[in-house]
Every structure is written in structure tokens, then in C-alpha cells.
């Protein structure tokens, strides 16, 4: 506050000259000079603001508009009739939507639980000091660095029913009596994709948690040790509560990122067999670019947006609660 006030008084002399000419009343003078003083700051954010406006806000807005219109390939150039909530009604009534919503939820929840769980354990492991620790830590990141197209195709071959390594190993050690067509049957396709995604996501979670762990103050642990706390006590009473904010952020980012799954589905199953791996983003894509039904697709995209907004709101609420505690 103080700094601001200083700037205002300093600039008053300059603005007075203008205002005298216009004979403006006094309170306005302060306000206008405030804006002018901050103008340079606004100019700095202008490019970013324009970018967000044109490339993010406008498409989102346009998408919402389309979701209330009947847009197909036939009237893409002409009049697009307003149909109210008809698209939403149709989407909610289609069985594919319910299947994709269910699949997306299963996919997101199980991916996040295992990614975070295993990532956390690995983070604890790498938080110890041992030889070659940094080397192994960077090796772990490879899974995250590999482009999804490659990972997807790789796992497609690993899961293959005739030549896949996974089936071969499971049969050799006697867990399976005959190979399973992992991606080719409805009961296992989603599980196979979830496992792939868990593998991809572990290192990302691990690195974030590890950096949070390393930022924890050491003196708290020392104090606890002096007070006679054992390892479990200091883990559950110190590490876990202190990590809460970091875990919360990772959790929310993870949910949003995982909910938008698209590429891995496209590469590995194309939503099949039948609808076993149909997820919301892929369903929206299919509606727009295969069936050319842009209105319905817009409705699906808007529903995804609303769901993710709700999740973000929950996050904001929790953060506020955390801060007030």
C-alpha cells in the first residue's frame, strides 16, 4: 500500500497540468492517474491476455454456443438453428455417453490412485541417500519423456495375444494357462489401458512428490527424534500433514490431465472393442470428426468442461480451508 501511495503522489504533479485544462473534479484525478500509472503493467500482460482471449476463451465460448445449435456438415456454411437443450438431452439419453462417462471415471480414479500411490512410495525411496540415486531417478523419467504414440504402440505389442511378451511371461510362470487377448476383449481392454497409463504417470508423480519431500524442513524431524518419535510416527505426524498441500495440487492436476485422455485410446484401441474403452473426450471427437455432428460434440465438450470446473472448484475450496486452518 505504502509503495503505491508514493507513486501516486510522485505523479500528481504531472497529471495536474492535464486536469487543470479539463477542470476535472478532484477525486477523479486520483483514479485516472492510478490507471495511467499502471498502464505500463497492463501493456506487459496485453500479449498474454490477447492470446488467452483469442485462443482459449473464444474457442471455449464458441464451443458452448455450438452446443445449443444444430450443426452438422450440411449447414456448416449456412444458418445454424438454435435448438436449446436438445443436444444435451440427446447426449444424456445415448447409451454411449453413459458408457464413456463410466469408463472415464474408472480410468481417472484408478489411474490417479495407483500413480500417486506408487509414485509416493518411489519418492520416499529416492529420498534416501544411496549410490547412483540420481542416475536411477533420471532413468525413471524416461517413461514420462517418451512420446505417447511410442508408448501406446509399445504396449499394444506387449499385450498382443499371439506374440506379446506379457502373455508369454504369464504363461511361462504358470499364472495363465493360455494367452489373454488383453486389448481384444471387452473385459480386459480398459484394465490394460489403465495399466499402461499408470506406468506412464508414475515418474511424473514421483518427481513432484520428491521435490516436495526435499523441501520439508529437517529441524522438525530432528526435534521429533529428540522427543523420542519413531519412524512411523514421524512419517504420519510430520511428513504426511506437511505434504498435504503438494499432494492436493498433484492430485487435481492429475485428475484434470487424466480426465482428458485421448491419444492413448486412439492409438491402442480406438475406443473398442465395441465400446469397452470409449471415454468422453474420444466420444466427442468421434461425434465431430467421424459422424460430423458438431452440435452433439459441442455438448459433450461442454459437459467435460463443467465436470472439470467442478473439480477445480472443490480444489479451490479445499485450499482456502487449508489456508484458514
Amino acid at each position: 500500500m505504502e509503495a503505491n501511495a508514493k507513486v501516486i503522489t510522485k505523479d500528481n504533479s504531472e497529471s495536474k497540468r492535464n486536469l487543470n485544462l479539463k477542470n476535472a473534479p478532484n477525486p477523479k484525478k486520483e483514479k485516472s492517474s492510478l490507471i495511467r500509472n499502471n498502464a505500463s503493467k497492463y501493456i506487459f500482460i496485453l500479449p498474454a491476455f490477447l492470446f488467452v482471449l483469442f485462443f482459449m476463451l473464444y474457442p471455449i465460448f464458441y464451443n458452448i454456443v455450438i452446443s445449443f445449435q444444430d450443426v452438422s456438415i450440411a449447414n456448416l456454411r449456412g444458418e445454424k438453428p438454435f435448438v436449446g437443450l436438445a443436444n444435451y438431452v440427446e447426449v444424456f439419453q445415448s447409451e454411449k455417453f453413459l458408457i464413456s462417462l463410466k469408463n472415464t471415471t474408472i480410468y481417472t480414479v484408478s489411474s490417479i490412485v495407483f500413480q500417486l500411490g506408487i509414485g509416493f512410495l518411489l519418492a520416499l525411496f529416492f529420498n534416501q541417500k544411496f549410490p547412483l540415486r540420481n542416475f536411477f531417478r533420471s532413468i525413471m523419467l524416461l517413461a514420462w519423456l517418451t512420446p505417447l504414440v511410442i508408448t501406446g504402440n509399445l504396449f499394444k505389442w506387449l499385450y498382443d495375444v499371439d506374440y506379446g511378451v506379457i502373455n508369454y511371461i504369464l504363461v511361462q510362470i504358470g499364472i495363465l494357462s493360455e494367452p489373454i487377448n488383453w486389448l481384444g476383449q471387452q473385459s480386459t481392454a480398459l484394465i490394460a489401458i489403465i495399466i499402461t497409463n499408470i506406468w506412464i504417470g508414475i515418474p511424473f508423480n514421483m518427481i513432484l512428490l520428491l521435490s516436495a519431500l526435499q523441501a520439508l524442513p529437517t529441524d522438525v524431524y530432528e526435534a521429533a527424534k529428540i522427543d523420542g518419535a519413531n519412524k512411523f510416527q514421524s512419517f504420519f505426524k510430520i511428513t504426511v500433514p506437511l505434504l498435504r498441500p503438494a499432494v492436493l495440487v498433484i492430485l487435481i492436476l492429475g485428475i484434470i490431465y487424466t480426465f482428458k485422455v485421448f491419444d492413448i485410446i486412439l492409438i491402442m484401441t480406438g475406443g473398442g472393442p465395441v465400446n469397452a474403452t470409449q471415454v468422453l473426450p474420444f466420444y466427442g471427437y468421434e461425434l465431430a470428426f467421424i459422424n460430423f455432428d458438431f452440435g452433439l460434440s459441442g455438448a459433450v465438450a461442454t459437459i467435460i468442461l463443467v465436470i472439470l470446473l467442478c473439480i477445480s472448484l472443490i480444489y479451490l475450496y479445499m485450499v482456502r480451508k487449508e489456508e484458514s486452518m
Partner: protein
Amino acid sequence: MKEKMYWGVISFILISLFLVGCSSGSETSGSGDESDGVVTLEVWDYNSPDSPSEDQLLGLLEQYEESNENVKFKRTYIPFGDLKTKLLQGVAGNELPDIVLIDNPDHQSFAEAGVFADITDEVNEWGEADLYYEGPMASVMLDGKYYGIPNDSNALALYYNKDLFNEAGIDNPPKTWDELREVAKELTTSETKGLAIAGAKIEEATFQFLPYLWQSGADLDNFDSPEAISAMKLIQDMVNDGSISENVINMDQNDALVQFQTGKAAMMVNGPWQLPRLREESADLNFEVALMPEGKQAASILGGENWAITSTTENKDEAWEFLKWTQQPDVMGPLHELGGQLPNRSDVAEDEQYEWNEDKQMQVFVQQIQTAKPRAYGSNYPEISTIVQEAIQRALTDEDVETVMKESAEKINPLLP
């Protein structure tokens, strides 16, 4: 002083934004530049770089530019999967090219969307439409009007591995469904599957299934008829027999080719575009091509590319002159040879100087095309196709075929024209 600088910065930003907007605008709207009497025709197609089909197209454009000084081409390659999206964007943004080379099942959708120009008058005046095979021609028509010209065709036929046939003691490729099932079963060993086809959840699955549907005497408008059910049952039975890999559900036509190339499949159903690849990559593979086995009748499916002129072009006459020129037998023949494609005009197809009349394997495809049907089911075809794909996948995962076909028919019927 300071103030002036702010406004300077702001106006600089605004001016540069304005300039950027202008320059990109003039770049894209330059399709009809006629300032010095030279017309630039913009062409969009999906012939991938360095493929035989691209050589064919580039040869065509170059040849035409040489003989017509007032025409220049601006050709843009767009990957197969993106062409439709790109066209849709073009429609929305009013930035379409003059000429498009498009996959024939999509032709009607875009014609109905008003993307392609009605060239019925021109085609009638030209008077050569009767020379074309029925199937390809039907794919460019909507409600009795012409919206393009078929350029090249292909059809599915049966490839078979002669060595594996000899080993199993089979002399001839299967000619009927019963023989197909029988032979495939006999050829199946622990390492080799009898037949490889595509069943992944993409257009290729529909492409590979429709021939059986038509062979059975059924069509998409009676998808729940006993004939249609028998066609789906044939595929399901062969998977249950073990003669088609369970993995067919994730295989596209290239995967089928790889299975065949590596001897993991004794037969495959595939198109003529695989011939050059097989000859080049698998020189020691002893294979032959045969007509698709017949059910009640012979049938195969027609693939290929069509020419279309967009409705927004300012150079319709020049574009039409070019299209007409490409269809002359002495232009078309040599260029199709180069591209590994087949003609769809009887006068070119029957001309004995061309490869497809000397090459025994190519000849099979030429013959197959005569029974090949196009996917001409109106503008809802893409959606119908996704329902068919789903039906195939359900049958492949061992669901009851009759239920599957009944439920699919209910979804398909309202979408048919």
C-alpha cells in the same frame, strides 16, 4: 514523455497485429489470382510424400502445366486422416481450394454439404460418362447429379501364399464361403493363421466386411436379414475356428499385410496398392491373387479417389478443363501404371498395351472391380460405418450375431437415405 511512450507501444502492437492479420488474409485468399492471365489452381490431396500415388499426381500436374501456359498449380498434401477435417475448416473459414482429390466414400457427404460444385451440365456436354464402370460413377453422384469424376479405383481381392498351400496339399484358392472356411481351417497351424483381415475400429473394418454382406445378397438396408446374419456369422465362425487371429479386432489392413508377409497368415484380403510393396519387400514370397470367394453372388468393395471441384472456386472452367484432360485414355493409362492404381473406364481398362492386362495379378483386380460396389449410402455414411464397425467388433468378441445384427439394423435404418 512517458505517456507518449505508452501510446507508442500500444499503437505499435495494434499496427503489427493489423499487419499480421492482413498478410495472412491475402495469402490464403490468393487462389484466384488472374492478374497476368495465369490462373492458379489450388489442389488438395492425401497422396503421401514419395509414394507411387504421389508420383502419379505430380506427374499429372507437371504435364498439364507444360502444355497449358495459363495454368499453374498450387498443390497441398494433407494426410489422409486430416483431409476431411481440413475441408470442414475450409468450409467454415471460406478458404477452400479449387480442386480436391477425395476418398470415394466421403464424396457424397461433402457434396451434400455444398462443398463440391454440381458439374452435371459439364459432364453431359462432355458425353463420356457412359464409359465408366457403374460403381465408381455412382460414388460421385447425389440425387442424379454429378459432383465429380472418379479418377482411380481399387477393390479387395484374396491374396494367398502358394508355398503354404502346397504344404497343406491344397491346389486352388477357395471359390465359395464353404471352401474359404474349410481351406482356412486346413491352413491353420500353431504358427500360421488361415486368413488375415482387418477388424480394427476404423473405416477399414467396414471396408473389409461389406463384401461378405453383399455376397450374401443382403445390403445395409436389411442388416438384420438372415443373409446379413449369415455374412457376419461367417467371420465369427472363422475366428472361433481359430483360422482368423483373435487379434483381428485390433488389426488394420497394414497389419494384415505384415501377417501375410511374414508367413503368419496363409491368406489375406487386401487391395492392389499392396502389390508393389509385396513385390519390393518380400521378393521371395511365393504368392498369388484370386477373386474374392462368392456367397450367393460375387461381390467386392470399391475403393479409390475421385476428383471434385469446390463450389466456391472462381475458376470452375479451368478446373473442369483440367479434370477432363486427366481422363483422356493416353494420359490416364500411363499415369495409373506409375501409381499402381486401376482405371475405371472400360476403354482404358481393356486397352492391352497397359500393365494390368499383362500382369496376371493386376488382372485379377481389374476383373474384381467389375463386381465391386461403392459405399454410396448418402451423407450419413460415416456414422453408419461406425455402427457397422461396432457390430463387427461385437461379433468378433463372440456376442450373439442375431442380436447384434438386429440392434445394429435399428440404428442404421433411420440413417439411410
